[in-house]
């Protein structure tokens, strides 16, 4: 500190050629600043390189190998990819299951969350209570919620089908029926839209009231106000919800794993024995892409092939996210100031 010639610098001086000692001091200050940044960033620098960057590269390498975790990886070139796009009979059902989920469950989730939020804003009483009730399922641990649903929708004795039969409806087999398993999971996901609902609710309540008033004076009815005022004002939040829902849809794992392993009738083996053969029950209808990846990697220990599968997932996730973000410029109303 004492080496700095602090007093020697009068204020109005034009930038003169720096004296060597000042230059040294300046360099030292810059170095100190850099050191501070480095110190603060260090957890992330380590975390990013060890748990993200290196694994990404390693994953790319592993995808060109045959690897079973016991012996060291053997380079087999493009064989994994050739199998992935050529020979593998199971991967396309898994892809189409995930696409089904993205095309049907994800839009339903966003719409349902928005609908719930709209309904709550219309309530005059009990806003807090309704918000809490609609949010509670989100808090429920996935395993607990899914087990609960598998029991509720149990075809023979579950409460849902009991109630339906009292109404004279012969309920479907839900989680046991290949055609109904995915819709059942969709219902489960709709039950848990609380996060998106709370975000929508906050956004809707943030819409400036004068916009509604002027729209009303101009003679806009409720639907038009929704379309021309509410939706544009909250469009950044809609975009955010869609992106989150799509990302989660691509990663959809827990619910499908638990539903398929606990709905399968023959799953009475020993703990963790070989659940992976029940994955996708019934008839592979819930074998979503991440489950297939898990089954290949950690059920059959085809680590190399699983790495290739995850490379495909990476490319698709990137493409989908970029596609949504790029298209969003057309319909997201940026003047809302949400950045």
């Amino acid at each position, binding site marked *: 500190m004492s080496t700095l010639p602090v007093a020697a610098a009068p204020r109005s001086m034009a930038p003169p050629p720096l004296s060597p000692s000042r230059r040294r001091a300046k360099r030292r200050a810059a170095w100190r600043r850099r050191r501070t940044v480095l110190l603060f960033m260090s957890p992330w620098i380590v*975390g990013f390189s060890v748990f993200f960057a290196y694994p990404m590269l390693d994953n790319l390498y*592993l995808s060109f190998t045959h690897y079973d975790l016991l012996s060291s990886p053997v380079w087999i070139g493009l064989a994994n990819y050739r199998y992935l796009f050529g020979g593998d009979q199971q991967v396309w059902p898994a892809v189409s299951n995930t696409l089904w989920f993205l095309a049907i469950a994800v839009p339903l989730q966003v719409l349902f969350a928005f609908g719930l939020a709209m309904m709550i804003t219309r309530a005059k009483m009990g806003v807090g209570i309704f918000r809490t009730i609609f949010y509670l399922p989100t808090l429920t641990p*996935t395993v607990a919620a899914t087990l*609960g649903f598998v029991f*509720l929708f149990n075809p023979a004795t579950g409460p849902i089908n*009991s109630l339906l039969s009292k109404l004279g409806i012969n309920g479907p087999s839900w989680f046991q029926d290949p055609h109904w398993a995915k819709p059942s999971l969709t219902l489960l996901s709709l039950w848990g839209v609380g996060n998106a609902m709370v975000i929508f609710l906050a956004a809707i309540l943030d819409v400036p009231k004068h916009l*509604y008033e002027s729209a009303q004076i101009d003679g806009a009815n409720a639907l038009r106000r929704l379309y021309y005022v509410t939706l544009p004002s909250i469009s950044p939040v809609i975009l*955010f919800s869609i992106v989150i829902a799509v990302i989660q849809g691509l990663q959809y794992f827990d619910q499908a794993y638990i539903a398929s392993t606990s709905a399968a009738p023959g799953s009475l083996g020993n703990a963790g024995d070989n659940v992976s053969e029940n994955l996708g029950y019934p008839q592979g209808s819930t074998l979503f892409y991440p489950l297939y990846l898990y089954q290949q990697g950690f059920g059959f220990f085809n680590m190399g092939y699983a790495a290739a599968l995850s490379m495909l*997932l990476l490319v698709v996730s990137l493409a989908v996210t970029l596609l949504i973000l790029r298209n969003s410029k057309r319909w997201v109303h940026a003047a809302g100031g949400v950045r």
Partner: protein
Amino acid sequence: MATVASEVRAPVIRRTIPWSVRRRRLLVAIADHSILIALAIVFLAPFVFIVLTALMSNQQALTTHLWPQPFKFSNVTHVFDTAPMLRYAGNTFMYASLATLGLVVSSVPVAYALACLRWRGRNLAFICVLLAMMLPPQVTIIPVYVMFAHLHLVGTVWPLIIPNWFGDAFSIFLLRQFFMTIPNEYLDAARIDGCGELRIMFQVVARMAKPAIAAVALFSVLLCWNDFFGPLLYTLQNPAHWTLSVGLSQFRNQYSVQWNLVMAGTIVFMAPVILLFFFAQKAFVEGITLTGVKG
């Protein structure tokens, strides 16, 4: 049909509202509330059925009767005898607390550097954070698993805890967004007073960002408590390290189809989270809103 929402907010102007309009508004309000109440019942029904089933005898749980007869409250304690629930809970608690502690300690400085310090490469670093946040974890899961397998940590909860001590992308993002809203004047004032960056972080930024830090910690506790994929991947082989989520998911495999006990275990698993929510509801809602509106 949908006139209520905005008219409620309209400034109050004294005028006589025609009877027909008032009646229509009343009907709309009743319709709105009926729909909401119906939805609320649908949302609560699974909880009700889970609780009812948890109190049934095993035979009764396999019938179509909905009301327990008699109420077997002993089921809830019986779960603890049937499965090592306390150990599962202990493992889960260890995972949630250590991971959250590490996550807060490591993410706050990174977020501070990204929001409050100016340096070259900052935007690039932020993009890296976003990238790590957006990409599915399955993309890195295999090499990370292999890494922990080489360290002989597979079969314990440590692979779940350790990465949290090196910054979590989502938390960094959230905290950074919040730190950005703190006016620079505060920081500059502290700097002029000769305060070091470390001290500014602790005494100025961290104090002002208490709600955000609380929200991040809360989310982390919740995520860990509910986490299934991680514990499944790393602890499935070793029942001594199972968390509640893995233990419960294996319940059916281990103890055949005792739905009443499964549901009782479910309740034991859910209860702490729901209690936590009622105690910290405000922090929750603020936190969720933070993710959405600033995102």
